[in-house]
Structure formats: structure tokens, C-alpha cells
């Protein structure tokens, strides 16, 4: 990390900064939290940051219950959770790439096509210009932040709620979706932009490539927030960590794999 210079300045100003921060929650946010924590702990050797997984709702619950200082969630906070009175910080954004099996000849889909595929209206690739083969739809589990964002933006989340077809395979993580799509012919799925690699084929949505720039300029539509949640007044050390995240340096770390919020 390039924390050499700030480390010295900060070190002079706040030599006394010490304590333990527990972050818990979404596993999607976990790698980023760990990265941020590593750099922060380099700067303040007396600070320990424990990063826990568990899932978004564990993040919400543990922040509310005070088990964790910071709860991490990779989805919007639900109305039912808003009542808990937690403070929300969007620390990063994550693009969601629509991916198909590498052998597929599909290059581009419209939002409407994606919606119809995921609601089960379109079940054959020939309807969207592909070969005559049944579509294998792969989605994330109920409650997943990625799924929540995806269905909302693509309109799968209709008037009657989540309309995802019953015939979708459900996989419990980004990696599992990626692996499934990579090895299953005629499949389609969606994964975090950070996880996109050449084992699967990322396609254009409405003619726009999925990339950080296209998300920043809002031409690529499918993305979701990474939230940090705190409960009431926070200890000095937690505040310092939050400040660090929203500093230029912190957001540089964010930008390595995700999308900066400033």
C-alpha cells in the first residue's frame, strides 16, 4: 500500500489511536473490508480490526445488537430494518455483470430481454437471437444483496414482488454462480463486476459494456451499493476508520476492484 506518507502525518497527530473494531456481515463486502482494514492497521499498529462474514442480515443484526461495531451489507436496507435506527454509509458501489457460458454466441441483451428471461417468459435462446436451446437461468439465493439489486433494476421485481422464474438454479455465492455458468452450456447468470474473468462471458446490456467507467457515467445501469452500518454514537477509532474510508486514499483502495463513491 501507498500509506507511507499519511501514516507519518496521522501518526504524529493521533499517536494514541488504539482499540478493536469488529466488522461483520456481507461476504461480498468482506474482501474490500479486509483490504481497507489491512491498510488502516498498518497505519495504526495499536488498532485491531476483525472482519467477519455472515451475510448482509447478520451485518444489520449484529450492528443493531452491538455485537459488531460496523455491520456490512451488500444490499439496500429494507424498510423493516430502517426502524432499527442505524446510520448508513455507502462506502462503495459494485457493478453487476450479466454473464453467459463462454460457448454462447449471445453478445448483447436488452433490459427487457433480461427481465423476460428471468421471469420465465423467454425460455429459449432462439427468442433473443441465439441458437435453439433451452435457457438455463442461474440466480442468487433469496435475500442476497446482488439478487435484490439485480431484480430491482432489471424489472424482475414486479408489482407482485420477486418474479424470478421457479425454474432458475439458485447458487449461494458469486463464485458458485460463476462456476455454474462457466461449466453449464446455455446458461445465464449475474455476478459482481469484481469477480468477472474469462471463465465466463460478460455481455453488453442495452449495447453498453460492463466497466467501471460505464457505471460511473451511468450508461451501464446494473449496480448496487456496499453499505456500512453503525449504531448510534461511535467510538473514536471507528470514526477514524470511517473517515479513512472516505478519504482519497481509502477510495483508491475501493477503486482497485469496485467503484468509488466520490
Amino acid at each position, binding site marked *: 500500500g501507498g500509506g507511507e506518507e499519511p501514516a507519518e502525518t496521522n501518526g504524529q497527530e493521533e499517536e494514541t489511536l488504539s482499540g478493536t473494531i*469488529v466488522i*461483520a456481515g456481507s*461476504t461480498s463486502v*468482506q*474482501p474490500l473490508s*479486509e*483490504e481497507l482494514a*489491512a491498510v488502516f492497521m498498518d497505519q495504526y499498529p495499536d488498532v*485491531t480490526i*476483525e*472482519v*467477519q*462474514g*455472515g451475510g448482509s442480515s447478520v451485518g444489520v443484526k449484529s450492528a443493531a*445488537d452491538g*455485537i459488531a461495531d460496523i455491520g456490512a451489507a451488500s444490499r439496500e436496507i429494507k424498510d423493516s430494518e430502517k426502524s432499527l435506527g442505524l446510520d448508513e454509509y455507502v462506502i462503495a458501489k459494485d457493478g453487476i455483470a450479466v454473464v453467459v457460458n463462454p460457448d454462447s454466441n449471445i453478445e448483447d441483451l436488452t433490459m427487457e430481454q433480461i427481465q423476460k428471461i428471468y421471469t420465465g417468459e423467454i425460455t429459449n435462446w432462439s427468442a433473443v437471437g441465439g441458437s435453439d436451446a433451452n435457457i438455463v437461468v442461474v440466480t442468487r439465493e433469496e435475500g442476497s444483496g446482488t439478487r435484490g439489486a439485480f431484480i430491482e433494476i432489471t424489472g424482475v421485481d414486479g408489482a407482485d414482488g420477486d418474479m424470478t422464474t421457479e425454474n432458475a438454479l439458485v447458487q*449461494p*455465492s*458469486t*463464485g*458458485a454462480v*460463476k*462456476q455454474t455458468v462457466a461449466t453449464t452450456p446455455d446458461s445465464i447468470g449475474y455476478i459482481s463486476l469484481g*469477480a468477472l474473468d474469462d471463465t465466463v462471458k460478460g455481455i453488453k446490456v442495452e449495447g453498453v459494456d460492463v466497466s467501471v467507467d460505464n457505471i460511473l457515467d451511468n450508461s451501464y445501469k446494473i449496480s448496487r451499493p456496499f453499505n456500512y452500518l453503525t449504531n448510534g454514537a461511535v467510538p473514536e477509532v471507528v470514526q477514524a476508520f470511517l473517515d479513512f474510508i472516505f478519504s482519497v486514499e481509502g477510495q483508491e483502495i475501493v477503486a482497485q476492484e469496485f467503484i468509488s463513491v466520490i
Partner: protein
Amino acid sequence: MTNATETFELIVPKEKKFSKMINWKTYFFYFFIYLMATVTILVLIAIIGYILINGVLHIDWEFLTSEPSKMGKEGGIYSIIIGTLYLTLVSVVIAAPIGILAAVYFTEYAKESRWIKMIRFGTEILAGIPSIIFGLFGFTFFVIFLGFRWSILSGGLTLAMMILPTLIRATEESLKTVPRSYREGSLSLGATKWQTIIKVVLPSCLSGILTGLILGIGRAVGETAAVMLTAGSSLGVPHALTDPARTMSVHLYILASEGLSREKTFATASLLIILVLIINMIANMVTQRYIKKAKA
């Protein structure tokens, strides 16, 4: 049945036919048995072979001694090995005395009353509860209700509950193999019941108990769902009972399901299998010695 030679002649031709008929059944029977035994062995070789072939080469000193970074995508699994050891140790230290003493109670003291039947039934139920339920329970009870947070303590207590039935059962079985004559011999010399248990019964079934312990360790090492919900999945090296830890099984699950790094996944899986192999070998050795001793 009048004369031997007569019957002799009568039976021979008949029997030839039967034995032909019976032979077909018999051949099929043995064919099926051998086939299934072979299939089982092949499956075992396939699973272990597949994982070891893909993973063993990625295990090196570096991998074993460096700490993981980026969720385990890079670096080694040092802190995870430590976490696994810690958690297993804690769960065994909690469960072993309780399990062994409970088994002693069941075999040596309990009379067949309705109460004892209920307590026994409880133990059986505990053995059948799926690990995910232990996870749910550990999470709500130890982590949240008792405020132990994600920690080796929460995980260890949860795992201890999980391996308790295994320990009780194994100890009970080995206690039952202690001949009654040892107990009678001791009691007839004026020893009390407890003296008899401590000085004669337990020492002569020590290796049976040890086998049970090792089985319990195996179960603790292999558990994923319950550990993830109670000990957490933090990557740091744990220093205290109140620190969270990630075990190898949890790490493997995260690596496999997040698809972080194929190499590290296979390497971790291989290491886990090797560990289990070693545990099994120790258990076998102990049992062998036990059998030898029992025979002597």
C-alpha cells in the same frame, strides 16, 4: 430313512440339479457383493485422488506458514491452521470430561428408570440434530444471547455439544467391553465403586476412549455450517478464547463457493484430507493396540 445306501442313490441325481440352480443364485450374490465393494473402493480413490492430484503440489512451506490475504485468494493458511487447532482443542477439552463422565454414569450407575431412559433419549436426539441447527442455536445462544460474539469460545461450546454424543457413545461401548470380572474382582476386595472405576475400569479401556476422542476431533475438524455461524470466519490469527477464528473446513467452503482461487481451494482440500487421514491413522493405531491388549 431305512437303509443308508438306498438313500444315497436316491439323493444324488436330485441334488445335482439343486446345486446347479443354487449356484446361479450364489454366483450372482457374490458378484453383487464384490461389485459393490469394488465400487466403494473406486469411489473413495476417485474422490481422494481427484483432490490430492489437483492440490498436493500447491502445498508448500510458504502455504503452510504465511497468513492469507484477500479472503484467501492469496497467501497461505497459517492463521487458519491455528484457528482449526484452537477450536478443536477447546471443543474437546469441554466435551471430553463431560462425555466420559456421562458415559460412566450410563454404564456403571444408571438403573433402568424412566428418567434415565429420557436422558438417554436426549443423547440420541442430540446425535441426530443436523449441524445447521447447532449453528442456528449457537448463533442465537452463545453469540448473541450470552454475548460471546463470534469467538473460539462460542464455536468451541457449539462443537462440544455436537461431539458430545459421539464421545458418550464411544466411551460407553468401550466401557462395556471391560469384563464384569474386573469389576467384581475389585469390589470383592473391598474397593468402592468409584475406586473400581478409576483404578480398574477406566485404565483398561483407555484406548477405546481415546478412539472416541479422535473420532470427535475428526467431526470437529470437518464441521462447517455450525462453525461458520458461531466462530465466525475472520482471517486473523486468534490469540484468545474471545477471538474469532476460521477453520479449514470453513475456509474451504468459502474458497469453493466464492471461486476465489482454484489452486488454494484444492490445496486446502488436500490438506484437510491429509489431516483427516492422519487422524484416522492414529485412531486405527490406538484401536489396534487396544485390540492386541484385550487379546493378551
